[in-house]
């Protein structure tokens, strides 16, 4: 294990708020300075291709769209057991979505020090390239949450970038 930290944004950017995870990662790429051993990855709608990135990381933050019935833009953080249980929810098909890829990595011997899942409540999942206004605010908040987590892990050495949360 190379001790890398992976921030993995998931989603389909052609379907409005569905792409929120990717938007968060692209935003972080724009505002965070380059940090050794920190990988900010646009995971798009991929499955198995993510396996090597996951296996090379000892700490993983997954950012994705999440429906929990809360107001659009709400940011939820799943940690510890909640985050690892998330791996088992998508269990039915022989599909290779991220939870199954995490399970496969586990089967192959991957044991992360940290796994955090950050979910952002969507408003609109219809065709379109833009985030809704509510979810765009959630993007900024999620970026702050990710930065704080990275800072707690000692990866980013300041509270947060100056313009974070202000930049459009």
């Amino acid at each position: 294990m190379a001790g890398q930290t992976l921030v993995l944004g998931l989603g389909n950017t052609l379907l409005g708020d569905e792409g929120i995870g990717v938007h968060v990662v692209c935003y972080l790429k724009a505002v965070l300075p380059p940090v050794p051993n920190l990988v900010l990855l646009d995971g798009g709608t991929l499955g198995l291709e993510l396996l090597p990135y996951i296996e090379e990381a000892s700490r993983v933050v997954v950012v994705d769209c999440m429906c929990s019935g809360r107001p659009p833009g709400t940011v939820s953080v799943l940690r510890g057991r909640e985050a690892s249980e998330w791996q088992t929810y998508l269990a039915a098909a022989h599909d290779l979505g991220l939870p199954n890829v995490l399970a496969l990595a586990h089967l192959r011997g991957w044991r992360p020090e940290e796994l955090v899942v950050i979910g952002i409540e969507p408003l609109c999942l219809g065709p379109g390239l833009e985030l809704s206004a509510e979810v765009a605010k959630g993007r900024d908040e999620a970026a702050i949450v990710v930065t704080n987590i990275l800072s707690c892990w000692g990866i980013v050495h300041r509270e947060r970038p100056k313009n974070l949360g202000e930049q459009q």
Partner: protein
Amino acid sequence: MSQRIVLDPVTRIEGHLRIEADVDGGQIGEAWVSGTMFRGMEIVLRGRDPREAWLFTQRICGVCTTVHAIASVRAVEDALGVMIPPNARLMRNLIMASQLIQDHVVHFYALHALDWVDVSSALQADPSQTAALAQSISDWPSASSAYFAGVQQKVKSFVESGQPGFLASAYWGHPAYRLPPEANLMALAHYLEALDFQREFIKVHALLGGKNPHTQTFLVGGQSYPVDPNSQNALNADGLAFLRSKAQEAIDFVSRVYVPDLLAVASFYKDWAAIGGGVGNFLCYGDYPMDDSGDPASLLLPRGRIVGKDLGVVLPVDQSQIAEYATHSWYQYSGGDETALHPWRGETTPRYVGPKPPYEHLEVEGKYSWLKAPRYEDMPMEVGPLARMLVAYASGVPRVRELVEVVLKHLQVGPEALFSTLGRTAARGIETLFLCEQLNTWIDQLASNMANGDLRIHAGEKWDPQTWPAEAEGCGWHEAPRGALGHWVRIKDGEIANYQAVVPTTWNASPRDAKGQPGPYEAALVGTPIADSTRPIEILRTIHSFDPCIACAVHLLDGRDREISRLLIG
């Protein structure tokens, strides 16, 4: 009295690919297949620059990432009359073939194997007998009893960790599993090895495509990755050596692991050579141009149709004969839903009239799918590896005939066995080996062009929209891993006026048409035996034999009830 069973594999809430089947007397009487997601890509593209369409269409799918890019650039090149230079053709062939090889290996091991391989039984296997079995079918080096004991231990520890993930949900211990424990353990070990193979092999895309997935080197008119023996930032001698090493890895893994496993597993399931036949009509657009003539005769995998399982005649393919029905699909056609529209005149006006979720059953007498029903001369057609191998076999491609005959002989069955679930799965393996064997031909031609000073990668004469006619239409075909993929584009005043993609899974998973003819999945399920209607693994075997494109497009974490839905596109 028949019983309606529902298989909505990923979620019971929104679904993606949903199957309803009437089971009577232990077998399926009738079946309906529904794609429960709306794509809408066509709407996104309208009004855009046709030269950038491929960047958008590539995002239709995250699994076979290159295929929609290739079909798109070909459609625009067809509309504008652009011929690409030889190096671009060769690099595209290498990108396409490596996508197909990687995708088929992943399909066999990660998506399909668990329909035939019982992981719970593998835990009971004797590692030394497993080693003996593995050594008897292949000279692959990882085959010692210590190796298999290690794999068994890994799986045990994983299961005991309480996070079994995808392994928790399968139908372990189902009576339809028939492999001895040692064969199960061997296949499981190779399942894990396939993960390493696929991630190493796809580095071909990182080299030729700039990155993987979603390669970035396509262009209308050719490719953007330079070919230059004197540059470090181009395909040079080092790059060619890298490609040769990857080609060798592919030949090794496919000929010494994948194909022997396929034959070993298939020999325990020969009854599946008589199940899952389907519509019996096959369509292949053909692919892998071997020269720059643009002549369909130059295609390595020939173009053609087979109708009514008749391997004696290969019929031609005329794109004007393709049309899509929306009679049973959640769309509205301005001229009436009973009509069929050619893709250039295609319409994408969603009209959902199905039940409000959650629902128990779809209204299969009316509209019941987000997939349209493509037809050729009003006939449903199966597409995919089986269609390609049948057309190549019937067209007399020598190496395909040879490989097909080796497999049939090994299984002691005749050519009629190809029209089945097992035939589909075998065709995929045959095709993978066939394409592995071609890789070096294209690498050698690239090397020879470079040696002769031909470094062209792009034909730029038609790049400027000023050179385009006011109106143009084109179609771009590609034989994607899952089958015949077509993009149709209409260009007006430099912009996309209409865009339609008819994807392989739409052909195969199509609903009924205006005449009530079932699509290939629906037809293939008829007559399938069902041992236990609460655990219909038999349905999965046949549906997975088509390799449905499931892991696409949309995924959504549901924090309320801990379900995640992943919705189907392709």
